[in-house]
């Protein structure tokens, strides 16, 4: 149990916590194979718990049909609709039914526009994925080099400035960052578009492709039209920066803390005394070992990115899952909300698994 203790001991708010929790329930023995198997099996209780929690929480408010239409329909019609949808059955029966359909990949049908949640996921998930990837790229480009610089100039003015920058990145709500960027670069300077994923002209062209991936950059490249590619990229800059800076601040802090740790290690001193150049020392000797906790924390960032994506997409009218979720929230369509949240739970559980596997492959110490 000691291993779990150590992992759980790190406060999650602290950037360098490696605790992707459920990693080491079974302690000793076994090699990589059994670790991966156990870690894989742990996906299921995670998803099960989240889905169950969300189901019962949402249902304590009453049934979704009353929530969506209550007061707008006469009582008898309302009762009929509730009966049709099966919401008048005992809660536990509904729950089993729900679990059964999730196991078959059916996350329900939205009330407001009568679409299967899986279809909503396919249509809008690509947009969210695209935004998340852009944001991660921004976060890497900004966060990691600046973190190295801050660690190297520890306690000097460059470090101070960078740390305040990191805290500012974290302290600025992603939608306020988005509003500011919009105000400056779109409204005042007029350099970049205000909102959306592409201008109407490009969007029409993109729709005409057969089998669109809905990842606009890929679709735009497929059209082979340089103008469309530029248009799509221009639209992506501000949302990506707004969401990316949020994560960049965390990366910066994380790299700084860990590199400070490795810079003090004996082998760095040894390498320095052998005459290894400072820049190489920083990049190879100090940075490489510090990379492992960073990879683990990326798993955490996926959850943060998804949460942030809801706000960023609303700010920029980026028509992804988060934007859609906000629309359904506004329409009080709680079937859709529950469905999307359940889908996201699956995504989070699976990404965390992948991240843990990568961490285990890189660092033998992780697989106990």
């Amino acid at each position: 149990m000691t291993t779990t203790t150590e992992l759980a001991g790190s406060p999650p708010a602290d950037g360098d916590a490696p605790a992707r929790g459920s990693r080491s329930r079974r302690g000793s023995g076994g090699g990589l194979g059994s670790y991966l198997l156990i870690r894989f099996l742990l996906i299921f209780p995670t998803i099960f718990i989240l889905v169950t929690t969300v189901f019962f929480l949402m249902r304590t408010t009453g049934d979704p049909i009353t929530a969506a239409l209550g007061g707008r329909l006469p009582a008898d019609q309302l009762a009929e609709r509730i009966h049709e949808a099966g919401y008048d059955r005992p809660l536990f029966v509904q729950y089993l039914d729900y679990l059964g359909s999730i196991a078959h990949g059916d996350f329900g049908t939205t009330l407001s526009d009568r679409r299967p949640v899986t279809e909503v996921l396919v249509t809008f998930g690509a947009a969210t994925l695209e935004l998340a990837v852009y944001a991660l790229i921004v976060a890497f480009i900004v966060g990691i080099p600046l973190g190295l610089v801050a660690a190297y100039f520890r306690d000097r003015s460059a470090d101070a400035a960078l740390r305040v920058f990191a805290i500012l990145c974290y302290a600025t709500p992603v939608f306020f960052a988005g509003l500011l960027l919009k105000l400056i670069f779109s409204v005042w300077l007029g350099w970049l578009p205000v909102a959306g994923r592409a201008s109407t002209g490009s969007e029409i062209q993109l729709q005409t492709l057969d089998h669109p991936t809905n990842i606009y950059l890929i679709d735009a490249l497929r059209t082979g039209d340089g103008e469309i590619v530029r248009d799509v990229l221009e639209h992506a800059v501000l949302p990506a920066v707004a969401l990316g800076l949020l994560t960049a601040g965390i990366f910066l802090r994380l790299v700084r803390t860990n590199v400070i740790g490795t810079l003090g290690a004996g082998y760095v001193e040894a390498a320095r005394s052998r005459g290894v150049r400072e820049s190489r020392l920083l990049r190879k000797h100090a940075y490489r070992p510090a990379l492992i906790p960073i990879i683990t924390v990326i798993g955490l960032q996926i959850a943060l990115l998804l949460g942030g994506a809801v706000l960023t997409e609303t700010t920029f009218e980026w028509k992804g899952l988060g934007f859609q979720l906000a629309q359904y929230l506004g329409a009080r369509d709680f079937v859709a909300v529950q469905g999307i949240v359940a889908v996201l739970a699956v995504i989070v559980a699976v990404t965390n698994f992948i991240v843990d596997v990568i961490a285990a492959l890189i660092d033998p110490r992780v697989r106990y």
Partner: protein
Amino acid sequence: MATVVPAPAAPGRRRRSWRKLPVVHQVRQSVGLQRGMLVAGLVLTGVFVFTAVFAPLLAPYEFGQLRDGDGPFGAQQHPSGDHLLGTTVGGYDVLSRVIWGTRTALLVIVIAILLSIVAGVLLGLVSGYFGGWLDRVLVVICDAVYAFPSLLLAIVVAIVISGGQSSLWGGIFAAAISITVVFIPQYFRVVRAETVRIKAEAFVESARVIGAGHRRIMGRHVLRNATRTLPLILTLNASESILTLAGLGFLGFGIQPTAAAEWGYDLNKSLSDVTSGIWWTSVFPGTAIVLTVLGLTLVGESLNDLADPRLRSRRAADDPPPAGAVEPGGALVPSGGYVA
């Protein structure tokens, strides 16, 4: 955050005991840049709390006021003598809403943190102390909840509690409880880990030998020692709860403008203003959020760094650290396994 950090100094200690109070002790312990960051954070937090407490005296108008003796304020008015920061699209005075907003934020922070500490510490203590299947189940549940995007969880809880529309206290409690659910796993994990560690210590063993009951051991011996790292998480959580509150407000789960002022809600309403170049409705509430979170985070980060010997700025050689840098009580002692 001096108001929330529990002050362990017992009355009747020696005269210089104020120096050992939490925060005060850390300010004295810090040097140079680190002290600057800590003090800046404390000042920002102080201003925030001051504004929240004296909001009725500071704000020129009520948060829900639309007109005064001279008639309605008018919507989207430029900043002027009457309305220093202009008016919103709904015709409210921006400055007043920014000031009143501190009060909502403070209430939510305090309620959320109190609730999550009580629940998280209790669960962590029981779970870590007794172990067994209850422990395993709670750990898996908390890991699952912790891994999930906190904003989404908060949205679900907000729907449950208020159905989305809320009065002042309904809204404040909805936001606070949503945030609590997100935070419980964090306190749970820390306290549980510490409990498991302390449970194996000799003094717990000896307490058991002399016949102390579970309740006494948990309350006196384990709890006192397991909660020392909490102030760190507390300040960081305080800032996170403001961001969650604002996020909820921005998505339309805020408190109605007539019930209380909430920055996230105001930012949501200013979304369309920005496109037409109206900046004052978004910039000021947004800046209020940033400054508050900045202040709390600076305090939290500085305390964190001071507790971590790897990150603590080194004192000049001619100024030796006070004997026993680990103070009884107040000090935030780094515990094993804390810095992963």
